[in-house]
Each structure stands twice: as structure tokens, then as C-alpha cells.
């Protein structure tokens, strides 16, 4: 292994700026002459907008402009598009009501954008926003997804009767029903997957800018995929051709999915910049993030698992209601369908699976991808129902899983829900995790806790996910309106250093380091001589961005392809200079050599001669050493793993403490173990957050967001989690050049089920059987009281 190459724990290049306060997040940027925007947002969950009176606001000090939905309609601004079309069971396309960035006639959730006030300073804009007088006629609201399709529920969109976006399904229903009918055991559960707020610590921010001289727009935005924003906003919303629109996403302070989507504010800032003739800047306050960032999860599910007399799973039937929120966010339709239903075979041999998802509009912020996106919901319900089966049948949960796990020898494995797993050793993940946690010794630890009056429990989550999204042809066949390849350009400079332009967009994932390791390793040059550039549509050929654990599996593969082209061209040049045939040139550790001789040229010499082409194969080869590649994945990648949590519950207070958390994950080959571990730690904590502390709640009557700040929405803090015991089990991906699978979402996908299974294990002696997240002390205490009351009856 090269010192800073693939597999090394290289310290991060990006830290040099982050640690000294010299990073550049969007809010750190100020443009000459900029004005500041503040949005007027609906205080009602659902209301007809009667009138927007801006006269007082316009007269306030410093105000430059006040713009409303009427201005947008006059300018023929279009709605924000959904990037994915789902079809219902009956073949009809989903309902896609328009989403004009500033609502012209109706507010559909608390926080909906009504107007924008632009002023010299942020405080002036804020003061003037108070003076915008909006007359509303409030309407009844529906915020709970389980209620949204009931007769008489308020209608979020007239175009979507019954609040239905789509009613989708996947799998063989007849086979599943038949298996359920003749099953020896059927295990049933009703589950709520609680709504979450992603809460990247950097709030979203943007600056729109327009240059009349060149008729060009620039948008700085805290986004995970600037090219996608350029495409969606330019082509669909504002009608700006790509060559006249530049989107820059500089340093981004976390995303977790919430910064994938094209948001109303981005379009408003860009549009307003031209109208007022000045750059317009906006930075969300945290309260705005709570109201308007796309949320995650929010499912209500009924699941039934059929088992035969030998405890083999014979069928799984899942029925889910999934909230879309008030409007369709960019990827929203794909999440509770293709990123969810397809994962319901999990790591098990269940021969028949059927899933139906009703996607429903509610008077809430949109729901879209949040770390894991569909896969945590799938894993949670599967691992909950498997654990319940073990309990109901009185067998060891490890044994039940072992009995049903897909063996490594069965790879490649075709599931009954579309996916084909290329590789993986799920049984080993399970066995390794059970060993690390000392499964056999748990009874003793439980006794020891009992002596202290504490209830100890242990819980497993045995997951698989589909990452490295995704083969474009598959995506297209499933209703995706984009391709999901990635691009990379490797530019050798004359004196031997390299700049890589990648369409991936790191916002914590450390690509500046891992991608540089790949270059250093493959081209044999010092890592210091490699720079990774990302996040600017004027500099990067193209890009689909970072989400779905795709940076390395797709973006890294594109990088390898571009590197291969550099090497191939280098061989031509070397062959010419070394007077050998191209086929005889080998490349290793940065040196081109005529095989079996000591005739050689270092790659730096080749690069120089590519730019000073005096002695050069001009007949066959162009000068320069600058190669681009696009990579379209052949399949999804399938990271898998087993997570085991051990918790202790204080029955007096309901407090749940995670004492241990063991993760054994298979991410395929690993470029930088230090960074992978960090991704897993962060992912696990988000999963534990969902399980124990986080919950997004809207008031059922008023539709107000009750958890609109860090005071009411409990983010996991340092003392809510333990130090983690993480390790990996490497089974290289079979279909991409690095053999990598992706690690960004795994922790979040696995963790929640492990913690809740552990909690239910701890509460078993008290007879608690049902529990929905989060396990806050109050809710746990309540569950204990309810169970003891039931026992007393």
C-alpha cells in the first residue's frame, strides 16, 4: 500500500481550512452591492390567501423590493418540479400539483412562502417583513399521514382527491396471500416511523446574482448537487439556459439529504436578483430550517410475516402510508417506493414479498430523502417484525436470523422485489457482531443490571441497503427523470501536479482526501500534488452530486476511468519517446517502463512533454494531458451489516441509555478506514437519535409545528451516545472498478431498529409489546405504566 494511497488512514486535506476558521460556507460569502432577503411565511397550516398588502412594507427604511406570488405568475415562473414519476397500481401517473415558489393563492403548510422582502440590511428586511399584511382565510388542516386519506379529511390540493399522490405496489400479491393463508405462524405489527428533521448544522443559505452585461445568473447555494439545481431551476422553473446560469455550492455544512432538493428560496433569490438588479442574499434561521427544509420518514405501516413450522420465512406483506407533505419535493416520490419496497427482502430468503405504498399529501413541510431515505424505514420494519417473530415463537433472535439468512454461496441473489444482490456475506456479519458483543454472555450482564434496579436489553438489526445509485437505464425504467451517473476530469498540469474536477459534492464526506488518495495511488504521485475541485457548475463538466452513498461508488469509479485514460495516453507518449511499441509499455508507481528493460519515463516527464510536445507522437496523439470520464453504474451496490445495541432502562424514570453499540459492516473495499469509521459513527448517532430523542410533531388541530427549535426537537448530544465498537467485513463489490460499496448511510439504516429491539427486550419482563419511536423517558415510562395497568386488569 502506498503511504497515502488506497487503504491508508490519511489525515484529511480539508481540515487545514476547517480547523482555523478559513472555510467558506455560503453565508461567509458577501457579494458587492448585495441586498438581503427575508421571507414572509404562512402562520397557518392551510389557508386561502385573500390579499397580500405590501404598501406599508415598501415604505419601511432600507426596503428595495417586496415580491409576491402574483409577481411570479406575471413573470411566468413555473412550479418546482419533482424528479421522479411514480405510477399507481392502476397504471395512472402520480398526482403532481404545481408548486409555485411564492404561493399565489393558497398556503399549504406553516412556513409556506408568501412573499420576499429585500432590503439593504437583514434587520431592515426582517423589520419590513413584519409590515407585509396578508389576509388569510384559514382552512382545516390535516397533518397526520394516517388520517390523510380518510373521508372528510381536508384537501391539500384540489387536483389530488383524497390527498392521494399515488397508490403504488410491488411484488406478487397472490403468492404472498397464499403463503399467509397456509402459514404455520403469522406475525403482525403496526408501526409508525416517526417524522424527523435533518438539521444539518449549517442552515441553508443562498445568494442570487445577475450580470446584465453578460446576461448571466449565478446562484450560490448550500447544496449537495449544484448541477442538478442548475438543471431543475434553469430548465423547469425560471427558463434560464445552462450556459447562462452558474450554480456554486462552496463548503457545505452537512446535508444528510436535506440539501439535495431544489428549494423555493433558490428560485426566488435568482429571479429576484434580476428584478432588483443586485445580488440578493438569504440565510435561513434555524426556525426556518425546521419549518421549510424537507423532513424525513413519516410512515404508518402494517406488516405481516408468514413462517412455516420450521420457522422459515415464507412471505412478507407490507402496507404503508407515506407522507409527501404539502408539495412534492425533488426526490420525494421515489423514497417510499423504489428505495423502500425493493429492500424488503432484506438479508433473508423470504420467497414472496408484497408491498403497497399510499403516498399522501399533508399540510406539513415536504418529506423527502433523509440519510438512508427509504432504506432505514425498510430495515426498521423488517428487523422489528423479525424480532417480534423470535419473541412470539420463543426462539433466539440470532438463531431465527441464521435460519433465514441468504448464504454467501447464493450470490448473485435475485430477490422477489426487483433487486439483484451481487455479493455479501450476511451470515458472517451476524456472527461477527454476536461475537464482538458477547451475545452468550448477555444473560450475566442482564443479571448484573438487575441488581442495580435497571432493565437491560439487547437488540439486533441485520441490514442491507442499495447504494451507489444508480444505473441510469434502471432509474429511467422506474420513473426517474434523470440519469444517475457521475463525471470526473483529471487534469495533469505541465509540471506534474493534478487537479481533479468531480461532480460529487462532499459536505462532510471527505472526498478531497479520499479522491486524492485514489489519484496518488493510481498515478503514483504525492498526495500533496493533488487538488480536488467540486461544487461549481462553471468548473466541473457535469455532476449528479452526493447522496445515496454514491460519491465513491459512482464518482470514484468515474475518477478511476479518467485516470485510466490518462495512463493510456501516457503509454502512447512513452512508447514514442522510448521507441517501443505501446503494447510493451507498463505503468506502475508513477513510471512508464518498457517491459523487461530499464528504459523508463516518470509520469511527470510525460506530463511535461504533453504540454511541451517537441518529442511527441503528433500523428496519433493530441497534446495535453487532461481526461474526462462519465461512469454509469452497472448495478446498485449492496452494503450490509449487523448492528447490535445494548441498552439499560431505568424503570423509575423511563430513561434509556445505550450502553454499547456494535457495528460490523461490509462496505466492500475501503479507501480510508479513518473516514469510514467516522461516517459510521455519525450514521449510528442519527439512528440512535431517531430511536431515542428525535420526533417532529405537528399539532393535529392547528397544524402548527410544535417542535420548531432545538429546544423542542431533541437532537442527540454527546452524552446520549456511547463510544462505538465498529469493524468491517470486506466483500468487494463485483461490478465497479474500486470494489467499493459506500458507507454514508449504513449507520442510520441499521441503528434505530437495534436500539428499539434492545429496548423492547429490556421491557419484556414488564409485558411491554408495542412501542413506537422515540424512546423518550416520558414515552417509555408511559409504556411501562400502560403495561402494568393491563397486567393488573
Amino acid at each position, binding site marked *: 500500500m502506498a503511504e497515502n494511497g488506497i487503504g491508508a488512514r490519511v*489525515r*484529511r486535506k*480539508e*481540515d487545514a*481550512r*476547517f*480547523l*482555523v*476558521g*478559513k*472555510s*467558506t*460556507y455560503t*453565508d*461567509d460569502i458577501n457579494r458587492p452591492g448585495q441586498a438581503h432577503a427575508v421571507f414572509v411565511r404562512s402562520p397557518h397550516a392551510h389557508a386561502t390567501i385573500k390579499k397580500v398588502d405590501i404598501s406599508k412594507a415598501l415604505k419601511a427604511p432600507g426596503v428595495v423590493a417586496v415580491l409576491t406570488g402574483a409577481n411570479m405568475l406575471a413573470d411566468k415562473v413555473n412550479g418546482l418540479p419533482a424528479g421522479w414519476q411514480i405510477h399507481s397500481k392502476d397504471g395512472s401517473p402520480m398526482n403532481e400539483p404545481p408548486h409555485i415558489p411564492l404561493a399565489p393563492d393558497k398556503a399549504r403548510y406553516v412556513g409556506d412562502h408568501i412573499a420576499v422582502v429585500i432590503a439593504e440590511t437583514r*434587520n431592515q428586511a426582517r423589520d419590513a417583513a413584519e409590515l407585509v399584511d396578508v389576509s388569510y382565510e384559514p382552512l382545516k388542516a390535516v397533518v397526520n399521514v394516517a388520517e390523510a386519506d380518510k373521508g372528510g379529511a381536508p384537501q391539500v390540493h384540489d387536483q389530488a382527491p383524497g390527498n392521494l399522490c399515488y397508490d403504488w405496489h410491488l411484488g406478487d400479491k397472490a403468492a404472498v396471500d397464499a403463503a399467509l393463508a397456509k402459514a404455520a405462524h403469522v406475525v403482525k405489527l403496526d408501526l409508525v416511523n416517526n417524522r424527523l428533521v435533518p*438539521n*444539518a*448544522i*449549517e*442552515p441553508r443559505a443562498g445568494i442570487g446574482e445577475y450580470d446584465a452585461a453578460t446576461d448571466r445568473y449565478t446562484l450560490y447555494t448550500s447544496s449537495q448537487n449544484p448541477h442538478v439545481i442548475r438543471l431543475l431551476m434553469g430548465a423547469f422553473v425560471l427558463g434560464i439556459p445552462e450556459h447562462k446560469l452558474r450554480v456554486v455550492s462552496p*463548503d*457545505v*455544512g*452537512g446535508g*444528510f439529504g436535506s440539501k439535495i432538493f431544489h428549494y423555493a428560496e433558490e428560485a426566488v433569490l435568482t429571479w429576484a436578483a434580476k428584478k432588483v438588479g443586485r445580488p440578493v442574499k438569504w*440565510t435561513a*434561521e*434555524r*426556525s426556518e430550517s425546521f419549518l421549510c427544509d424537507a423532513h424525513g420518514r413519516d410512515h404508518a405501516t402494517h406488516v405481516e410475516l408468514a413462517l412455516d413450522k420450521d420457522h422459515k420465512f415464507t412471505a412478507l406483506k407490507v402496507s404503508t402510508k407515506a407522507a409527501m407533505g404539502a408539495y412534492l419535493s425533488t426526490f420525494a416520490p421515489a423514497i417510499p417506493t423504489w428505495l423502500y419496497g425493493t429492500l424488503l427482502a432484506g438479508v433473508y430468503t423470504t420467497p414472496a414479498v408484497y408491498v403497497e405504498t399510499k403516498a399522501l399529501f399533508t399540510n406539513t413541510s415536504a418529506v423527502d430523502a433523509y440519510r438512508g431515505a427509504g432504506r432505514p424505514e425498510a430495515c426498521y420494519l423488517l428487523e422489528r417484525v423479525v424480532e417480534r417473530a423470535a419473541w412470539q415463537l420463543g426462539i433466539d433472535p440470532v438463531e431465527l436470523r441464521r435460519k433465514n439468512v441468504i448464504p454467501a454461496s447464493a450470490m448473485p441473489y435475485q430477490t422477489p422485489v426487483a433487486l439483484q444482490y451481487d455479493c455479501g456475506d450476511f451470515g458472517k456479519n451476524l456472527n461477527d457482531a454476536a461475537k464482538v458483543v458477547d451475545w452468550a454472555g448477555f444473560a450475566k450482564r442482564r443479571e448484573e443490571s438487575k441488581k442495580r434496579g435497571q432493565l437491560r436489553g439487547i437488540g439486533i438489526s441485520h441490514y442491507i441497503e442499495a447504494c451507489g445509485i444508480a444505473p441510469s437505464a434502471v432509474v429511467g425504467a422506474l420513473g426517474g427523470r434523470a440519469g444517475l451517473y457521475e463525471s470526473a476530469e483529471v487534469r495533469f498540469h505541465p509540471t506534474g501536479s493534478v487537479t481533479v474536477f468531480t461532480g460529487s459534492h462532499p*459536505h*462532510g*464526506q*471527505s472526498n478531497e482526501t479520499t479522491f486524492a488518495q485514489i489519484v496518488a495511488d493510481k498515478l503514483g504521485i504525492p498526495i500533496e500534488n493533488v487538488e480536488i475541485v467540486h461544487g461549481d457548475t462553471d468548473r466541473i463538466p457535469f455532476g449528479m452530486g452526493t447522496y445515496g452513498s454514491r460519491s465513491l461508488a459512482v464518482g470514484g469509479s468515474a475518477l478511476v476511468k479518467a485516470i485510466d485514460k490518462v495512463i493510456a495516453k501516457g503509454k502512447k507518449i512513452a512508447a514514442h519517446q522510448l521507441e517501443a511499441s505501446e503494447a510493451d509499455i507498463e505503468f506502475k508507481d508513477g513510471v512508464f517502463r518498457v517491459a523487461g528493460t530499464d528504459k523508463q519515463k516518470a509520469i511527470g516527464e510525460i506530463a511535461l512533454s504533453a504540454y511541451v510536445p517537441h518529442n511527441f507522437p503528433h500523428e496519433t496523439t493530441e497534446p495535453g494531458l487532461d481526461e474526462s470520464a462519465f461512469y454509469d453504474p452497472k448495478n446498485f451496490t449492496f452494503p450490509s451489516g449487523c448492528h447490535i445495541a445494548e441498552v439499560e432502562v431505568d424503570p423509575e424514570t423511563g430513561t434509556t441509555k445505550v450502553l454499547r453499540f456494535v457495528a460490523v459492516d461490509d462496505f466492500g473495499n475501503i479507501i480510508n478506514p*479513518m*473516514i469510514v*469509521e*467516522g*461516517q*459510521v*459513527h*455519525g*450514521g*449510528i*448517532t*442519527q439512528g440512535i437519535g431517531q430511536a431515542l430523542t428525535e420526533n417532529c410533531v405537528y399539532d393535529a388541530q392547528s397544524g402548527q409545528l410544535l417542535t420548531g*427549535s*432545538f*429546544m423542542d426537537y431533541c*437532537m442527540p*448530544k*454527546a*452524552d446520549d*451516545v456511547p*463510544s*462505538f465498537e465498529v469493524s468491517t467485513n470486506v466483500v468487494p463489490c463485483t461490478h465497479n472498478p474500486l470494489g467499493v460499496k459506500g458507507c454514508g448511510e449504513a*449507520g442510520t439504516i441499521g441503528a434505530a431498529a437495534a436500539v428499539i429491539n434492545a429496548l423492547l427486550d429490556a421491557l419484556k419482563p414488564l409485558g411491554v409489546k408495542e412501542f413506537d419511536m422515540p424512546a423518550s423517558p416520558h414515552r417509555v415510562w408511559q409504556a411501562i405504566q400502560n403495561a402494568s395497568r393491563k397486567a393488573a386488569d
Partner: protein
Amino acid sequence: MAISVSMTVNGKAVSAPVEERTLLVHYLRDHLGLTGTHVGCDTSQCGACVVHVDGKSVKSCTVLAVQAQGAPVTTIEGLAKDGKLHPMQEAFRENHGLQCGFCTPGMVMSALDLVKNNPSPSESEIRHHLEGNICRCTGYHNIVKSIAAGAKAMGGR
């Protein structure tokens, strides 16, 4: 109305006319261009804005600039000396204590406050101390390791 606010930031005397209602964090970011101090919330909970005023750690989103009138203020930009990272910064680098980097300045400033009062903090003391700092990326594991290592490098056991 604008008033003139002066203080010593990272050893340098500074002065700027600002609105009375200006928060210290905006004074640092907007008037001095010291954008290393971040704003992550509007309810004083995330700790992305922590700086030292008069040697004490303070959430700069929660004090007015005028309250720091005349005081010495240290921000993340003031820690590294002569191009050399402070041992606590170095420990964060060495232990991968940051991912997106947004919480990091506040974490480092808060860590230094802990170590000042407790040169050799235990894991649970570190975790407890961080109750006012939220990180969404790291899961805290490596932040805790970084702070323990930083404390050691600064002379603790």
C-alpha cells in the same frame, strides 16, 4: 442608531460602528470578516458560535457586541500561531474530530474552556461538558477522542 464598539479580537484592537442590537457573532462575522465563528441556531443551543470573551467561553449569538466592549475576545482564527495549529486543533485533525466542519470552531473553543478548568477530563466529563454543542456529523465519538488527546497534548495526563 449606530454606536461604536471596540474590543481586542485575537490580540488586535478593533472598532466598528454598529446598530445597538448587533450580536457579537454578527460583529465578528459581518464587521470584522471573521467568518470562522458560525451561527447554527436561533435559540442558543448548538454552540457553533462559541468564542472566548475575557477568557470565558461564550455563545456569541447570545451576547450583544456592546457587552464585549473593551474585552479581549478570542475566536477560532486566533488559535493557530505562526502557521502552527494549536494542540487542540491538531488533536481534532489527528483524530478525525470533524466532518463538515461547521460545528468545529465551537467545539474547539468549548473544548479549550473545559481543559482550562479540568486539564485531564474523563470521557464522561467530556461528553457532559459538550451539552451545549451539537454536531450532526461525527456522532461525537471522534470529538471526544480529539478532546481527550488535545487535553493530553496541552499537558494534562
